């Protein structure tokens, strides 16, 4: 069940996705005990952000969520203090910013923390000037990735999503600048309207769609990236069962992340998936995940 995402080594392939429950070290410890191979923190900014007013989450009929939490977070400096005591949990710190200097400044804050990797959120679909607005600008992506790579020896992951620029352009720009891995995908821009009051439900109007509705979209992105580039991939989007996890690995991902499934199956989902993947590997006679990675591309 151990997996390597390039230079990143994990005991188990299923991680907590960014923005989900990722707020206290106690929670990280609990999730790690519950079977998560790593936890990705909420995306952190240079300053604390309150995020948008409620409603920030809409529960989609038939499954999935639309969220516009608005990247609320305590800010990198506060957060670094929270995770400083960490010894055991593989923590991936997610960062969000508008210019290379933002990322440089934040990375300095974490100098005393044990961190497994950084994940650059280039793909939040509902906050202006950061996230997708950065990911949609390949030149800016190059500058940010180069700056981050020069600021740290810890592996750096770029998280992409469906924006106004083709996500493969963003992937390519990140690879050109030395990125270590790609997480695909973030939520997909969406909205919900209440027919009685005739208004968008989320206070921000637009939010990001996550969960089962985006699973097959995310899966094709992983397949497309792994067919085109030789870069480690972390699959993310709508994963809630071991079959989903296996699909993403067969499509070419080295590890996976999940968030929305926790809203449905709570944190048991980590061990359920670990167990299912393990049984699958035994049944199919694989001794490592690597043996099955990308097999769907062969046919």
């Amino acid at each position: 069940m151990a997996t390597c995402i390039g230079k990143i080594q994990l005991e188990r392939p299923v991680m907590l996705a960014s923005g989900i429950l990722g707020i206290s070290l106690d929670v990280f410890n609990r999730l790690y005990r519950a079977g998560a191979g790593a936890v990705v923190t909420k995306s952190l900014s240079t300053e604390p952000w309150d995020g948008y007013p409620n409603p920030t989450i809409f529960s989609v009929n038939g499954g999935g969520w639309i969220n516009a939490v608005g990247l609320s977070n305590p800010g990198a400096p506060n957060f670094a203090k929270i995770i400083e005591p960490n010894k055991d949990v593989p923590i991936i710190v997610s960062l969000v910013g508008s210019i290379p200097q933002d990322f440089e400044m934040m990375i300095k804050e974490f100098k005393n923390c044990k961190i497994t990797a950084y994940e650059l959120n280039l793909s939040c679909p509902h906050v202006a000037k950061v996230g997708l607005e950065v990911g949609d600008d390949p030149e800016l992506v190059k500058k940010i990735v180069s700056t981050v790579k020069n600021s740290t020896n810890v592996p750096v992951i770029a998280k992409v999503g469906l924006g106004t620029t083709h996500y493969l352009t963003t992937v390519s720009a990140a690879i050109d600048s030395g990125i270590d891995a790609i997480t695909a995908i973030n939520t997909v821009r969406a909205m919900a309207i209440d027919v009685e009051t005739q208004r968008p439900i989320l206070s921000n109007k637009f939010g990001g769609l996550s969960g089962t509705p985006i699973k097959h979209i995310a899966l094709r992105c992983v397949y497309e990236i792994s067919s085109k580039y030789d870069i480690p991939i972390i699959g993310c989007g709508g994963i809630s069962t071991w079959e989903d996890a296996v699909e993403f690995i067969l499509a070419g991902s080295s590890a996976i992340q999940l968030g929305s499934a926790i809203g449905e199956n709570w944190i048991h989902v980590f061990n359920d998936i670990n167990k299912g993947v393990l049984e699958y590997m035994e049944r199919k006679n694989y001794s490592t995940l690597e043996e099955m990675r990308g097999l769907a591309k062969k046919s």
Partner: protein
Amino acid sequence: MQRNHNHPNQFAMVWIPGINELPMSVMISRESGKAAFTVRKHGHASTGLFNVKVGQQIGVRGPYGNSFDLKQGKLLLVGGGTGLVPMMRLLTFLKPDDDVTLLIGAKSKDEVFFEDLANSLLDKNSHQVIVSTDDGTYGERGYVTEVVKKLVSEIRFNAVYTCGPEIMMYKTVQLAHSKGLFVQASLERMMKCGVGICGSCCVGEDLVCRDGTIFDGPHLLSNKEFGHFHRNKAGILENY
């Protein structure tokens, strides 16, 4: 909203269109099979909800959250402010033999509510309703937790339930636990999703919306944040 009679205490996320969405305890309703909410006019959002006119539509998702573990016998209920709402609902789940003591804590006389409702809900039970106000303008004078202290040293309650300001709950849990009593408290925290994904309601390793809102006393006392810190909208710890 469908009311599930097996689950005393649950909350819902209540949307006041154009204003905000707030967690609200499910309140008993005069109409059977229905639920209601009790709002305290506080800041922008709750005032918005308070001002909602009859016929105007609000959105409700849920109910979410777990429920009190119902014990039988001598029961002590300690509520303050809107924390009385779950206590009122709890009263509707009692057995006829239960002997109930309800403590209502308030700052002063004009903030005391539900006293009559409680008495009428309890009219078939052996019971007493004790009100205490910080300023002594009604009932006992002083913090309600002083009454708790006195009662738990006199009576061996089968269970103690509390909901209200965190300091009140913290002291109540400590006092009851120190006497070896079964005690549960229903926590409030900043809630955004209500379903255990956003993380905004976390207290140490617990997520109030999903693991709670009700927790056992011993578990709470081992949580470093209970009674001391809560998180603001950005997730930064703030002292109570």
